[in-house]
């Protein structure tokens, strides 16, 4: 099955569903590497990044896009995916500096959330923001990080509109 999209008339995006494919892949066809194509590649490079860590004493590599949230507990940093909690070496501050533009935002002193993994937000009577993740977990956003979170969310909205 073929889906054809156009990104700002310059690049044609073709999505093809193939049965029994071993691994998903992206392929770029180009004549000259223009500004638009470079911008798309930059965003793809960010999105397709991986991070190393340990899970049950084994080294594992996880895609950043699979991470729901990252938390620091007792000076150790854990990245939570759908079915793993992987201990990583990076500090929250470094992760935020490097990956904030691909959707990571701080919601409390010890937690960074992947905005793309949020199902919805809900306010409670105590003016706290409850974050419902797509894996049915709930996180609480600290009031002092609220404005920064909304700014990050609007940045992503702006990027997706481009």
């Amino acid at each position: 099955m073929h889906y054809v999209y156009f990104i700002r008339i310059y690049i044609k995006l073709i999505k093809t569903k193939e049965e029994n494919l071993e691994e998903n892949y992206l392929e770029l066809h180009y004549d000259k590497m223009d500004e638009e194509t470079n911008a798309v590649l930059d965003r793809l490079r960010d999105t397709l990044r991986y991070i190393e860590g340990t899970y049950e004493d084994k080294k594992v590599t996880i895609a950043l896009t699979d991470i729901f949230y990252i938390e620091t507990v007792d000076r150790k940093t854990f990245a939570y995916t759908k079915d793993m909690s992987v201990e990583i070496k990076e500090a929250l501050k470094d992760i935020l500096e490097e990956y904030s533009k691909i959707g990571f935002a701080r919601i409390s002193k010890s937690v960074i959330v992947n905005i793309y993994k949020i199902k919805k937000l809900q306010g409670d009577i105590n003016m706290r923001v409850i974050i419902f993740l797509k894996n049915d977990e709930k996180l609480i956003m600290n009031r002092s990080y609220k404005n920064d979170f909304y700014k990050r969310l609007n940045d992503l909205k702006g990027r997706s509109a481009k």
Partner: protein
Amino acid sequence: MKLINKRNFVSIVCIFFTLITCGKLLYERALNFTDRYYTDNIFTILGFSVLITLILSLHFYLQKFPFWLVIIAQYALTVGIVFLAIFIHGRFSTNAPTAYWDMFVSITIPFFIGALVYYICFFVQIKRANKVLEKLNGEE
């Protein structure tokens, strides 16, 4: 993130001062009332603006406490300081018979309006954010 800091403190005091003064003047114009203590009241408004900005700037340091508890505590602190100022003022000159009641109303109304605006903005922000999230999730 600190909303009120050293850089914008004076600007926020000026905004409060302007808004309260304009409100006072409009109210007086509507009632055709002439304020005999105009100068005194203008300085009271200035003092009140500084006080309310100072107390609201504490909000940042009280993030870990429940919101309503912080608002009530800030309200109680403001009322307490203002009543103390009226009491001290009364020791040196004569207060108006309704001084405590007038100041109580002057503090309570802006506080409740401020809290209501904050409450509404809080839920409007969440509603907007959910729309953005819906859009982002729809793109996946």
